[in-house]
């Protein structure tokens, strides 16, 4: 039984899930803040892409680095983490059938996060924080830059505490029976990873703040990198866990899918919780001061158990969709279930594209570049952003966009205008991100550096530069950037229009993306018991098996090709 306060909850007319009205308020608040930060980051992204496209070379040097700082912080930290807090509030309440632990705590967290982010953006824009997102010392920013990040981190930690407290009262009041739903379990994984992130953030940012005030004399560059990446990388692992939870959630909502085997899916989340944060070492593989044992053990997330987890999710999500579709009667051949999927539903299209981009581009490149020795031919080149734009943008951001197409009607209870644009938006955005990411990766394989204003080195005392092929790929990067920005802009405009001017649909079910009868069928398939027929289909998912083996073969080819490329360079140890 739920523990909701009288008059402080409602039942969703579409899904039948309970909605805590306090949680709903903060889900809205964090989602709106997230989209604002996303807009700032997206404008910055366009300017950066048009500068890295060497034929255009738009911004002057100083503004390039300033806008790059703005882009990194708003996208990787403010947009993503704000949205994730909204997800935590939703999962902790609606899925656990519980009220939010505290409205006051939620207010404190929200104000700290928004004020912190605005402080950082202000300092960067007035030119007092041209230190890029990583702010590596001895580069020094204005004290308010560090303070803003501390505010944002502490605010996030308080919000995560609110989530854990909600889990606590839900368990105490027995609001759900047995184990928590899988999506809530994924949110729990994200929250645990967030605690690791924020503790490292505090450990590194508080001394840096004091140093910027002149109260601490020296910050060791190597120590800072070690602890900062305990913040920088895990913050992106929160994304991975949250994104996978969103995959499961949207697969259910759009096709009626349910996991084939709870143990496998949950064990994969446990592997994330235990091991994914070791991978902060990815950034320190060619650093001084850390030995090979430390590098190999940590970069491999303890023998790649977190990679195993992603490979499992990459199987179980499509497999669960395949089973649901086959139960609906799409049984012809290997791929009829996939071709008959609801591709016109932006919620479904977003997550399926997200799975493909995350797996085929983000995952394969990430593991390969994170191989201790291969990093020698990749560190600080454009291959690195080529990788993480496929994970964080093509993976997480696209999945969050798909979720937003349901959050607006179900939580804000507003309808979208221009639905046709929403239906094509995921495809525009995805193709832009793919081009952007491939352009970066290929340019980077020539050694083109990341975070660099002029790869022609104009005016340098000793000349340097790249051949035409590298510049061609920088052009691909630029075109991909424009396309991705267009997709992002359509998303933002549609969302803002719906949230602030959309027709209210409070009290009625939402069937804007798929006809009501299709949705009903999906929910009927979802709530069926796992009978013999289900198990029979679940044991044999030929379409998914083909997909994952294509992934594995691509993975092996890319991985060994990189070892070959490494074997050709100078000997070094």
């Amino acid at each position, binding site marked *: 039984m739920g523990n909701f306060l009288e008059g402080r909850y409602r039942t969703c007319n579409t899904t039948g899930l309970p909605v805590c009205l306090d949680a709903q308020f903060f889900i809205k608040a964090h989602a709106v803040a997230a989209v604002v930060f996303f807009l700032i980051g997206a404008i910055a992204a366009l300017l950066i892409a048009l500068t890295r496209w060497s034929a255009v070379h738009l911004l002057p040097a100083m503004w390039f680095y300033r806008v790059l700082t703005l882009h990194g912080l708003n996208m990787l930290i403010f947009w993503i983490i704000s949205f994730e807090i909204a997800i935590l509030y939703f999962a902790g309440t609606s899925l656990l059938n519980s009220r939010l632990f505290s409205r006051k705590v939620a207010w404190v967290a929200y104000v700290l996060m928004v004020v912190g982010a605005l402080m950082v953006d202000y300092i960067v824009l007035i030119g007092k924080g041209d230190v890029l997102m990583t702010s590596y010392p001895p580069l020094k920013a204005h004290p308010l830059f560090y303070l803003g990040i501390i505010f944002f981190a502490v605010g996030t930690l308080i919000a995560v505490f609110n989530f854990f407290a909600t889990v606590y009262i839900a368990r105490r009041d027995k609001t759900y029976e047995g184990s928590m739903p899988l999506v809530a379990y994924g949110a729990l994984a994200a929250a*645990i990873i967030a605690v690791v992130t924020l503790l490292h953030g505090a450990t590194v940012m508080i001394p840096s703040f004091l140093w910027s005030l002149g109260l601490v004399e020296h910050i*060791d560059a190597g120590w800072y990198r*070690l602890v900062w990446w305990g913040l920088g990388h895990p913050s992106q692992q929160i994304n991975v866990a949250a994104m996978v939870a969103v995959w499961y959630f949207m697969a259910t909502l759009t096709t009626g899918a349910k996991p084939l085997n709870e143990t496998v899916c*949950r064990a994969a989340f446990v592997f994330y919780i*235990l*091991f994914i944060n070791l991978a902060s070492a990815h950034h320190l593989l060619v650093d001084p001061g850390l030995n090979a044992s430390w590098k190999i053990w*940590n970069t491999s997330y303890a023998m790649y158990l977190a990679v195993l987890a992603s490979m499992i999710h990459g199987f179980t999500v499509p497999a669960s969709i395949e089973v649901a579709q086959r139960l609906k009667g799409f049984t012809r051949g290997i791929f009829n279930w996939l071709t008959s999927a609801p591709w016109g539903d932006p919620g479904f299209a977003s997550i399926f594209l997200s799975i493909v981009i995350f797996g085929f581009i983000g995952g394969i490149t990430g593991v390969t570049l994170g191989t201790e020795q291969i990093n020698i031919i990749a560190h600080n080149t454009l291959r690195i952003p080529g990788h993480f734009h496929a994970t964080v943008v093509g993976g997480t951001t696209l999945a969050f966009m798909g979720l937003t197409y349901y959050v607006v009607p179900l939580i804000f209870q507003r309808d979208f205008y221009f639905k046709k644009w929403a239906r094509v938006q995921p495809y525009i955005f995805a193709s832009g991100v793919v081009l952007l990411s491939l352009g970066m990766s290929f340019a980077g394989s020539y050694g083109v550096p990341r975070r660099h204003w002029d790869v022609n080195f104009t005016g340098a005392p000793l000349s340097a530069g790249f051949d035409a092929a590298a510049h061609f790929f920088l052009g691909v990067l630029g075109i991909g950037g424009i396309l991705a920005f267009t997709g992002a802009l359509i998303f933002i405009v549609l969302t803002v229009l719906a949230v602030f001017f959309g027709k209210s649909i409070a009290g009625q079910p939402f069937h804007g993306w798929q006809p009501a009868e299709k949705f009903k069928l999906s929910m009927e398939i979802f709530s069926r018991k796992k009978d013999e027929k289900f198990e029979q289909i679940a044991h044999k998912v030929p379409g998914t098996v083909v997909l994952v083996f294509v992934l594995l073969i691509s993975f092996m080819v890319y991985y060994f090709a990189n070892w070959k490329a490494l074997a050709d360079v100078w000997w070094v140890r």
Partner: protein
Amino acid sequence: MEGNQKHPLQKLMDNPWLLLALGLLIPILSYTIWGWYQIVTMAKALLP
């Protein structure tokens, strides 16, 4: 009914506080403390 005998591993996986504790402990020991120790104990350069 299958009864209430839950598998011990299921009980472990269902415990959010245990997961939180291990999720903090493992990366902090393996990544942070071990790396920190190496940086602090680095030998002085001889510059031959």
